[in-house]
């Protein structure tokens, strides 16, 4: 019992720290991509190692010609507190996206292309998911220069070893 108490006290004196995170970005909407990028950037700012794995529609965040056109999902998004039919009106997604981008600029959150560059320059490693790349018939040519390589799920787990995995 005393031993247990002592080891517990020891644990209390040295707070645990996170040394590495592996973040999965699996959605292609604006609100699906930003949280993962903010967490990756935030990790690097704390000196935490960060890998970002883009899969399924999350790949749009690193695709040339697409990553500057990411929109807020206005249909089937209860968080907007608007009837789904209104969300489906042509141009509505564009409008909501524009409003949200303006708000983000106000609090100094960069647009996605600039954010990808920032996260890449901060030393986070960006990877594309092989299964999705094969499914959509893509190659490295389709991705922005910050993307390091196309890797399988198995390779992702290998790289994630010893760290925390965050799925978004």
């Amino acid at each position, binding site marked *: 019992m005393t031993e247990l108490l002592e080891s517990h006290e020891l644990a209390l004196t040295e707070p645990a720290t996170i040394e590495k995170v592996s973040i999965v970005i699996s959605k292609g909407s604006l609100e699906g991509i930003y949280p993962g990028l903010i967490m990756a950037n935030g990790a690097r*700012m704390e*000196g935490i190692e960060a890998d970002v794995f883009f899969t399924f529609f999350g790949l749009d965040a690193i695709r040339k010609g697409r990553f500057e056109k990411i929109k807020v999902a206005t249909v089937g998004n209860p968080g907007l507190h608007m009837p789904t039919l209104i969300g489906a009106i042509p141009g509505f997604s564009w409008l909501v996206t524009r409003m949200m981008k303006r708000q983000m600029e106000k609090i*100094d959150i*960069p647009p996605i292309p*600039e954010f990808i560059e*920032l996260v890449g*320059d901060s*030393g986070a490693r960006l990877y594309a998911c092989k299964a999705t790349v094969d499914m959509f018939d893509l190659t490295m040519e389709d991705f922005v220069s910050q993307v390091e390589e196309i890797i399988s799920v198995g390779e992702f787990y290998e790289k994630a070893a010893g760290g925390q995995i965050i799925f978004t």
Partner: protein
Amino acid sequence: MSTTLIADAPVEVDAEGFLLRTDEWNETVAQGIARANGIPELTDRHWLVVRFMRERFLETGTAPSIRSLGKESGVPIKELYQLFPKGPAKLAAKIGGIPKPKGCI
């Protein structure tokens, strides 16, 4: 909150070692904090970032984001992380004698 000796000067710091009073800061204290945080010698490039952080905080009351640090300090993002591997904004703020940046970016 506690008082500690940095480069032989008693200064008040918070639990993470950030100075509580910006007026207790000087270049010797900055060198002392840098050494204690894994930067043996502050180069001109380090100073550029540290001074930018400090001046911006004293002017506006908030520390600049990593984004504006990269855009406006004169030191690009990649180099910022080479200079301050354990987090440029946080460490430059600490060395500059200002509070830990609160923003998420």
